[in-house]
């Protein structure tokens, strides 16, 4: 155990002795942070959702902890450098941050070296929100429904916009086109979220698989329309999603399609559930692994309260982030585990897709 965490424990222990008997050990562990400066690591630059949500959360979390939070953007390597910085920091509660768990799992699947595991290298404190993908196409695209996409003729493959091979745009497109037996091709090389959006709005490509709340603005302005919800229950109560088919679950299109192709619906369902979990798990709030249990407990509480605070929820929801389900920290942790386990199921499919794109 590092000196600092021993000190924290000592302080916590002292505080526990001195504190009124009703205060729980968890609360006192956080008191050691009061008046301190907490470094909050954002692995992406200002102007993105990770930075934005962190800055909106900053105030409420500062009030919860009585501490000063200093946001630092540790950018580079698609979020890897920031995630490594957080992983390698001391687990004393003075370094916290946000990591892109989907991105980390994707990077590991793409064969990237030294990728922190969201499951093992961090203490999960909570998650910002559940991310659920939709497939969108241009408003005037020839693909009116998902059936049109499934029936794409051999001489005109469906084109998907993807950024790097570890991106969720790519993972979703690759897994779904294999499981659903699509005649699909990936147009790779876009710089990121902005570029793939423009590519599908321009009509260079046909479909983009992307988190519903990140594409809501373009859907509402009538440039794009959703074709498929990558979920087993409706993603949101939004007019644009009415009548848009679900992928999995009892009403999902997957079971029938896989059956029609002569595949094993159960195996397919396992893969698709793994995909849904992997896509959902982005924006995990975390500390380095090995955080003392009482500190973990009180940080989780503080984070949960900050996430539930009206100040955070109002700003985030006005900026277009759907916050329908404030998850419990346990649920957040479970999802990270599920996603990491799911990644192992998806590995063979993605490997084939990587090879296709590299050739």
């Amino acid at each position, binding site marked *: 155990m590092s000196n600092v965490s021993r000190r924290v424990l000592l302080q916590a222990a002292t505080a526990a002795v001195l504190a009124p008997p009703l205060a729980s050990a968890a609360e006192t562990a956080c008191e050691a942070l009061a008046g301190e400066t907490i470094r909050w690591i954002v692995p992406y*630059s*200002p*102007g*993105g959702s990770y*930075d*934005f949500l962190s*800055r*909106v959360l*900053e*105030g409420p979390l500062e009030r919860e902890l009585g501490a000063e939070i200093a*946001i*630092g*953007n*540790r*950018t*580079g*390597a*698609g979020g*890897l*450098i920031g995630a*490594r910085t957080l992983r390698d920091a001391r687990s004393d509660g003075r370094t916290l941050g946000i990591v892109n768990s989907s991105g980390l799992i994707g990077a590991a699947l*793409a064969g990237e070296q030294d990728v922190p595991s969201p499951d093992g290298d961090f203490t999960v404190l909570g998650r910002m929100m559940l991310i659920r993908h939709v497939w969108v196409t241009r408003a005037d695209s020839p693909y009116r429904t998902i059936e049109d996409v499934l029936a794409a003729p051999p001489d005109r*493959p469906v*084109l998907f916009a993807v950024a*790097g*091979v*570890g991106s969720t745009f790519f993972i979703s497109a690759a897994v779904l086109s294999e499981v659903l037996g699509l005649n699909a*091709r990936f*147009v*790779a*090389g*876009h*710089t990121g979220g*902005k*570029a793939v*959006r*423009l*590519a599908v*709005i*321009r*009509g*260079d*490509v046909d479909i983009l698989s992307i988190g519903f709340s990140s594409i809501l*603005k*373009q859907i*509402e*302005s*009538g*440039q794009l329309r959703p074709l498929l919800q990558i979920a087993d229950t409706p993603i949101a109560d939004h007019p644009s999603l009415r009548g848009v088919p679900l992928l999995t679950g009892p009403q999902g299109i997957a079971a029938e399609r896989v059956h029609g192709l002569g595949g094993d619906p159960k195996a397919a369902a396992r893969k698709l559930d793994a995909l849904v979990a992997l896509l959902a798990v982005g924006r995990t709030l975390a500390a380095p692994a090995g955080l003392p249990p009482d500190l973990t407990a009180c940080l989780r509480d503080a984070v949960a309260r900050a996430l539930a605070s009206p*100040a955070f929820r109002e*700003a985030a929801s*006005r*900026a*277009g982030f759907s916050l329908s389900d404030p998850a419990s920290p346990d649920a957040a942790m479970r999802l990270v585990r599920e996603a990491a386990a799911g990644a192992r199921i998806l590995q063979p499919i993605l490997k084939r897709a*990587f090879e296709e*794109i*590299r050739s």
Partner: protein
Amino acid sequence: MNDFPEAMAAGFWIVFSWPNILYPVIGTLLAMLVSFLPGLSGIMLMALAIPLTLSWDAEPTMLLFGALVGGATFMGSVTAILFNIPGTAPNAATLFDGHPLAQQGEAKTAIACSAAASALGSTFGILVLVLLLPLLSALVLSFGPLEFLLLALWGLLAIASVARGSMSRGLATAGLGLLLAMVGRDPRVGDPRFTLGIDQLLDGLGVVPVFLGLFALAEIIDLASGSRKTLSGQQRASELTGSVRLGIGAVFRHFGLLLRSSTIGTVIGVIPGIGGTVASFVAYASASQTAGADGHFGRGDIRGVLAPEAANDAKDGGSLLPVFVFGIPGSEGTALLLAAMLIHGLVPGPELMAEQLPLVFAVIWALLLSNWLTSLLGLAGAGLCARLTVLPLRLLVPFLLGLVILGALSLRGEFFDLLLVVLFGLFGYALKRFDWPRAPFVIAFVLGNLFERQLHLTLQLVDYGRIRFFERPVAMVLAVLIAATVAWGLAQARRRYRVRER
């Protein structure tokens, strides 16, 4: 559309009323302060302003962000001209000719020209923005991978003209620039290339550290080791030859170039995701290509200051368009503007343009105000700034060295960036010392990435039958421009050859 004049006027009064006017003015002054430090910029201020303005009303927030998003870019050119230190990456194109002017005692002229070009360029960009609002979607959507590719190619052609004098050396440094642009992930698959296993190189060599080394540090080494006593070689301010009048006059003498550069800047601004660095380099490239025989680009041609500065500021007006209309930001600055808009309930798209038009214009006016304010303060301070060039070097050099080190470290708090600065500083000094041109290197380095990525995308889309050249008018126009540039260059070369023969 007939609400336009009314909304413009309403927007104007939102900005120019008390106490509203304070927000853009304070925003501008803050942005001016931080833009002296390379690495820090209005972007950081905007990120810090997000939590600060959460509880504010929409109007003051938008006014502040309007001023921060494009304001004060001109300030970066002052350090570029005076000390070869580009305050922001786009200002790097200004130092090719701006700094030689300062060394000839004409810093005042160069700064005044930069200020005037910035103000007029931004006005042009905003004028176009307002006129084009109705046609905007068509314009943005007409730029795809093929058009980006041709744009990059057009810029790369300029290597031939900036290498004038020693073509083989120019081509060699350009080749090196292209090679170094490839460091990082390959654009298609994302596999690391030439990174030597160093994580910090995964995203490629940073433009700012490379520029800081290649120009600023190289210059500092040169100053420290040379025999000059001051930057301009003059001891007294009265011996400096530059004047504000000359600088402003230059902008009107080359009005055609101002319009051309502003057009380049606006168009590149409208297209999300290319950015100011490419805008100012393409404008510089285009200016140097058409300079003709009397040009002395790279050795203190005022047009080399005018073109990139006009383009860089014209870009800001253009870059607001995709945000307002599509909700797609083209840069980190406009992404933060978008976030601020959304928080305050302003959702981009047709509805915003219909219902909140006065506020949209208020943002535009705030941007314009900020650009003019910076330029006017720049003009007022040009003389004072120019005096720095008669400061004894033994005082100036340590100060500049501190500025460069601070700039490198403040970029993203990475010690590695400082190493890059030192490495490229030594390299830049060697190039300067042995008279190898640096401009071809930088142009290739800046445009190499864009070129390679768009080439990959274009090839894939051509393969799938999604791009047909003859169905793309913008691509055809760009192809004609490229052909004309090559033909013009060949004609020039032939004329020079004939003159030499005689």
